[in-house]
């Protein structure tokens, strides 16, 4: 329970009525959030987080600059409704692959959360990643925790003003670069770069660069843990995926308590291993004390583990007073092997199996996907017509989508009725990554068919590759 900052709240002077053993007082329902000054931390888990910061941000900032066959390798062209990812071109009709990607993401989330809690939050979430980067900048300019606290408490002078101005300038520059990169995924980034250099950016690109930049600056610079605590829905529903065998960041109370300060090298007497140095609280980006147990604010970043391990090393105690462990292991004092054995429980195995099943199915579907889509719409109003020679003719609109990036010639063929013939050109040229609509006429001899509707198939096949073929069903009406 954090203390209420009543001085800052709307109720300036809480009125207190004392009763036996309890006090009833007016408390504000909204309090100013206390600023958190996370202390720099180094160690195994911090290294992992930085590795992920580098990995995700190299992909993010570098992605739009990669070329591929004279175009941008990764480009989501919303205006043309084509989505390029290296060799793949996705059309709006391919939305199923986006669905599959979301299913894979959701299942990965279930799996990772069931194994080790909020791994995503602690290491890979953009909120964490950008906060880490912004904190690093802040630390370079204003110093570590204590210097920052002192700076904020101090009077506004030239130095404080200068440091703050530099910090915000760097933050804003990085945020704008982030916004620029983001927009670069939707509009060719080299053209965008040109228009930025010539102050000639379109209104929508300007809006999105500023909006995404502002969101980055606001979230990573100002909001930070507030986003996780009060805005993120994911933070709240993750607890539903925890169970007693989920690895969480825990403080080993049995080993640590009673906590207390002591000089290095002296006998600790009746005290536990916790020296009550408060490092675990100081490094926490959400400002909680992990020694109070699992809390919803904990994003699982393991900064407290790294911090505590350093202290344990200095004290000459074994590491792991704060560590990844499970509720089960803590309660039953399980060894590491027993704990890990319990981690691979049916739930995890099932998630893993389903996840790999879907990834495999998606990969196969992508591999056998052919770069041709066909859509046939029968003329609705003109049902059937009689043409010269008494032949019955039906008209269809055939929409051919050549999703390959090079032009191709396609062959049309109709079957399903005796004497069914296709009138006009049977070959159709379609440009690369474009669609073409052609009216197609089919004819039959009335003597060879009965009146009514007949199912037929129209086959479209690439001239140079018989495997690139689509068979579409439609109907032929005779009257």
């Amino acid at each position, binding site marked *: 329970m954090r203390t209420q900052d009543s001085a800052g709240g709307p109720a300036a002077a809480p009125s207190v009525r004392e009763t036996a053993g309890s006090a009833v007082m007016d408390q504000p329902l*909204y309090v100013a959030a206390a600023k958190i000054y996370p202390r720099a931390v180094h160690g195994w888990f911090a290294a992992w987080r930085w590795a992920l910061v580098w990995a995700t941000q190299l992909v993010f900032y570098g992605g739009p600059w990669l070329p591929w066959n004279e175009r941008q390798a990764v480009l989501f062209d919303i205006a043309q409704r084509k989505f390029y990812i290296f060799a793949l071109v996705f059309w709006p009709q391919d939305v199923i692959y986006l669905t599959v990607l979301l299913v894979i993401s959701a299942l990965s989330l279930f799996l990772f959360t069931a194994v080790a809690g909020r791994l995503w939050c602690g290491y890979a979430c953009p909120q964490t990643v950008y906060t880490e980067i912004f904190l690093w900048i802040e630390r370079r300019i204003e110093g570590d925790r204590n210097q920052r606290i002192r700076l904020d408490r101090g009077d506004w002078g030239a130095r404080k003003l200068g440091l703050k101005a530099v910090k915000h300038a760097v933050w804003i520059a990085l945020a704008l670069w982030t916004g620029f990169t983001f927009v670069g995924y939707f509009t060719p980034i080299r053209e965008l770069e040109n228009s930025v250099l010539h102050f000639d950016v379109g209104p929508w690109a300007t809006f999105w660069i500023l909006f995404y930049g502002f969101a980055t600056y606001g979230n990573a610079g100002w909001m930070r843990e507030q986003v996780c605590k009060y805005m993120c829905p994911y933070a709240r529903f993750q607890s539903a995926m925890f169970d007693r065998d989920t690895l969480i960041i825990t403080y080993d109370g049995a080993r640590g308590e009673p906590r207390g300060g002591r000089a290095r090298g002296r006998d600790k007497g009746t005290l536990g291993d916790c020296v009550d140095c408060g490092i675990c609280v100081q490094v926490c980006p959400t400002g909680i004390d992990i020694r109070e147990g699992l809390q919803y604010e904990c994003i699982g970043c393991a900064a407290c583990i790294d911090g505590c391990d350093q202290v344990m090393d200095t004290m000459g105690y074994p590491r792991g007073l704060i560590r990844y462990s499970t509720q089960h292991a803590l309660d039953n004092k399980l060894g590491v092997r027993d704990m890990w054995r319990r981690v691979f429980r049916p739930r995890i195995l099932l998630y893993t199996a389903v996840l790999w099943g879907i990834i495999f199915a998606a990969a196969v579907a992508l591999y056998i996907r052919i770069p041709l889509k066909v859509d046939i719409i029968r003329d609705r109003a*003109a049902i059937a017509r009689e043409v*010269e020679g008494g032949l019955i003719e039906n008209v269809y609109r055939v929409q051919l989508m050549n999703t390959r990036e090079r032009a191709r010639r396609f062959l049309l063929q109709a079957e399903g009725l005796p004497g069914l013939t296709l009138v006009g050109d049977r070959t159709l040229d379609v440009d690369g990554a474009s669609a073409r609509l052609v009216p197609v006429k089919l004819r039959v001899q009335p003597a060879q068919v009965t009146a009514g509707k007949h199912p037929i198939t129209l086959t479209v096949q690439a001239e140079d590759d018989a495997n690139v073929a689509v068979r579409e069903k439609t109907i032929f009406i005779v009257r």
Partner: protein
Amino acid sequence: MSQFTSGFWDFYIGLITLVSIIACAVFLRMQSVRRVETKEGGTATTGHVWDETLTEYHHPLPRWWSWLFYLTVLFSLVYLVLYPGLGSWKGTLGWTQVGQLEAENARAEAKIGPLYQKFAALDVPALAKDAQAMATAQRLFLNHCAQCHASDGGGSRGFPNLTDKDWLWGGTPEAIKTTITDGRMGVMPPWGPALGEQGVKDVAHYVMSLSGMAADSIRVARGKPLYAQNCVACHGPEGKGNPALGAPNLTDKTWLHGAGEPVIIETITKGRNNQMPAHKNILTPEKIHLLTGYVYSLSQGQ
């Protein structure tokens, strides 16, 4: 709506809106403080007790959260000043739905206008050879014409085929443009009452003979004078038709309502009343010009 209501209702609605918005802010302000019970050595609770033992911890939200609430109140007030919404208040920006539609149309026109200007500068035969113009025109044709004339322009029973050389009202660019712009009314009066059943059949056989269909020679002979009496005014002495009236040529193999004796008898007996709707109120002159080029191009391949 103003004819139904007096100025009182504007005032009434405006007042309710404003009072509600301000009440929200006041309510929020009042509810920002709560009496909280703190047990000695325990944590603060809101004081609510449910089901005998359930209590609620007092976890205050960050203050920016309440500022967001106040911001929505401020937003609604600013919105109601700028945009219509408060009774009959028009808003200082002068925004209207119609105005927005017109602005969007003007923007679209500014974008596609130059394209159509380029097409309008070409004459119809040149337009028919311009691939870009024809690609645009095909989309217009599919939207506005294909319902009756089919996606390929081949028409169907009762709806003329636009891909052949046979024209009811003339196939010159000017005639096509007039047809699209003003529409056409093709009327053939019913001859059943005047000719009688046998007379109709005789004329039908004569008409069939004109295009070389198999016909009963006796009926043809009987039908010829009846044709000369009743039909020549529109279809001409040789049955070649008259584009000025939209009267079809009876000597070719094109039959709008279908070939064969029963259909021809039906046509003569009951007459025909065919209409092509006018498009001058639906399409701009530039679009009609483009469509003229497309329809003209359809018959050029043959």
